[in-house]
């Protein structure tokens, strides 16, 4: 789960990491109130979770309170990559001498967290890694010892700092690690971490992504994700509430399958035959009929879907349960779109019988079924 910049900065500030003074606003009046408490010039930043906010015009500068109000109104009327801006964060502009990067993420090969630092900040860290790999410092963290103060100081030294600046940077790095662990961050970064004109350090931008699997330890954010502000589509929220993995894509063939790898391969096969999947939906293992019905409802609620491809390989999932779920959904919401069903594995014969008796044809090969779904979507598209 991605946190908004203002959420991340508030957490960092709580841990004693310097961040620019700032305030949140959802309208011009709040913007004035916030700006009144700050020293100009200001930066007004749209609070959206999409990447490339700056390039899309989501960050504005203001020299006065009136300008900050205007900037707020402008941003609040904008959509950034299709996402309406609901909040802006107004903060004091920092005097930049140098932009740095510091973050912590996971290292799959070493099965650990890794601290990543660079004396070249301000751009995406992957870009830095590609363009100036020698400017990247990677430090795998031993989970049994943790990230210690001296590790942090060693990194600060490698970035070219000494004396009190080294100590201050080390203190900031160590605290960021604490935030990362306390909040189960799969990624936490300060980018840029600014060295100001007077030699101090300030986290001018911050990003935290909480490990979704750890959200049970962070109920306040889970609540915000499901009930409050988030940038999930209605289908994504509905799927999450029903423990289904759903991702909205931009094609017209709705897809339901069991198992993440199989569903991904199903999307790829549709694409291989020239079709475009409308979504990813994994019902998981051992899904009962009701869950299959819910999955169908979610996929069919996307108006772009012209055909549906259900691909089930029964292991712990039983084909007869899937068949019942399909009929249950048809009964409730009507057979709104043509369906292609591939059903093999546990209780296959019974599943096929149930569907065949209801007049639904069942295929055995995933490739054949994918081709059929692509043909149907083309035909439906021509109508």
């Amino acid at each position, binding site marked *: 789960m991605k946190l908004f910049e203002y959420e991340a900065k508030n957490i960092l500030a709580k841990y004693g990491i310097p961040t620019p003074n700032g305030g949140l606003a959802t309208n011009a009046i709040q913007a004035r109130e916030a700006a009144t408490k700050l020293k100009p010039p200001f930066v007004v930043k749209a609070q959206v979770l999409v*990447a490339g906010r700056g390039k899309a015009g989501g960050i504005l500068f203001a020299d006065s309170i009136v300008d900050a109000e205007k900037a707020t109104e402008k941003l609040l009327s904008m959509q950034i990559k299709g996402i309406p801006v609901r909040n802006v964060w107004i903060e004091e502009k920092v005097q930049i001498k140098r932009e740095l990067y510091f973050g912590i993420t*996971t290292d*799959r*090969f070493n*099965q*650990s*967290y890794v601290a990543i630092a660079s004396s070249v900040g301000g751009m*995406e860290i*992957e*870009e830095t890694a590609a363009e100036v790999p020698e400017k990247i410092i990677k430090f795998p963290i*031993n*989970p*049994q010892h943790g990230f210690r103060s001296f590790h942090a100081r060693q990194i600060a030294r490698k970035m070219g700092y000494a004396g009190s600046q080294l100590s201050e940077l080390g203190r900031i790095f160590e605290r960021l690690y604490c935030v990362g*662990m306390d909040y*189960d961050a*799969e990624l936490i970064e300060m980018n840029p971490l600014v060295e100001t004109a007077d030699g101090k350090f300030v986290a001018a931008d911050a990003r935290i992504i909480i*490990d*979704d*699997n*750890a959200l*049970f*330890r962070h109920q306040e954010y889970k609540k915000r994700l499901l009930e409050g502000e988030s940038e999930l589509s209605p289908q994504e929220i509905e799927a999450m509430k029903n423990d289904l*993995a759903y*991702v909205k*894509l931009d094609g017209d063939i709705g897809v339901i*399958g*069991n*198992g*993440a*790898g*199989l*569903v*991904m*391969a199903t*999307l*790829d*096969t*549709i*694409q*291989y035959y020239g079709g475009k*999947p409308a979504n*990813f939906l*994994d019902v998981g*293992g*051992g899904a009962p009929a009701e869950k299959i019905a819910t999955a169908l409802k979610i996929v069919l609620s996307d108006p772009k879907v012209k055909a549906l491809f259900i691909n089930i*390989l*029964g*292991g*712990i999932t039983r084909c007869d349960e899937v068949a019942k779920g399909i009929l249950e959904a048809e009964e409730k919401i009507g057979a709104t779109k043509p369906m292609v069903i591939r059903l*093999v*594995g*546990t209780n296959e014969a019974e599943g096929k019988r149930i569907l065949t008796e209801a007049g639904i044809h069942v295929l055995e*090969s*995933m*490739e054949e079924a994918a081709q059929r779904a692509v043909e149907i979507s083309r035909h439906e598209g021509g109508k």
Partner: protein
Amino acid sequence: MKEANKKLGIIIGKNTRAIVQGITGTQGSFHTELMREYGTKIVAGVTPGKGGTQIQGVPVYDTVEEAKEKHPANTSIIFVPAPFAADAALEALENGIKTVVIITEHIPIRDAVNVMAYAKDANATIIGPNTPGIITPRESKLGIMPAHVFKPGNIGMVSRSGTLTYEIAAGLTRKNLGQSTCLGLGGDPITGLNFIDALKMFEKDLQTKAIVLIGEIGGNLEELAAEYVAKDKYPKPVVAFIAGRSAPPGKRMGHAGAIVIGKAGTAESKIEKFKNAGVKVAEKPSDVAELLIKLVSV
């Protein structure tokens, strides 16, 4: 098989004596029955609070310690719910269990990292989390995979996904390409074993003549495996399939580990690395068997 005394496949076998942690849950008890039917020796179960009972004739204990005192277990398979699964794994490791299969999905990264660090120190093997487990056809199965899609043979399989492995294994079995061992690494970003570990084990395994590697988007473990194959002139043929060619960046595709971040972890990057390493890459799941037939006479 010329050498009848040799152990078949990797990691598990005739000497495997397993305990099931979380044996009294729906999944735990269901799969205990299926594993026993398959011939796996399940010596005990553990569920805190249910000690002294039995599940399908298997004695249940409150702690791994007690189960270990009363039975010569060397392996554990875990069906414990995610918030408690890391604790269960550490309990197994601390009590001297050397192979731990973690079936549980949705374990937090921070918990997995701690388990892996402990396992490294204890010189133990972790399979998973979020894995279907491991199967050596007709010999032993520690996992939840449907047994009927597998048959004994010479193809080693290693994968990050469950049902996709069954799909491809069923395709191999139909073409009479049996399997030595099928190992599920798990769909999480932090797993106990990676592709290189599996390649090393399959290299030493006399039964295995060729390897099927099933990867997916996210991370760089496939890329590292490709480098390993190229650099070490890996002696056995490898066929790869990578899922997620159509996945958009920034979206988690079901598995916690299946996510393209920026330009990192794409299917294209993995496929290109494998091709450069001389590994054949299948376009569709059904192509895996065709490519294998061309590469080996098994």
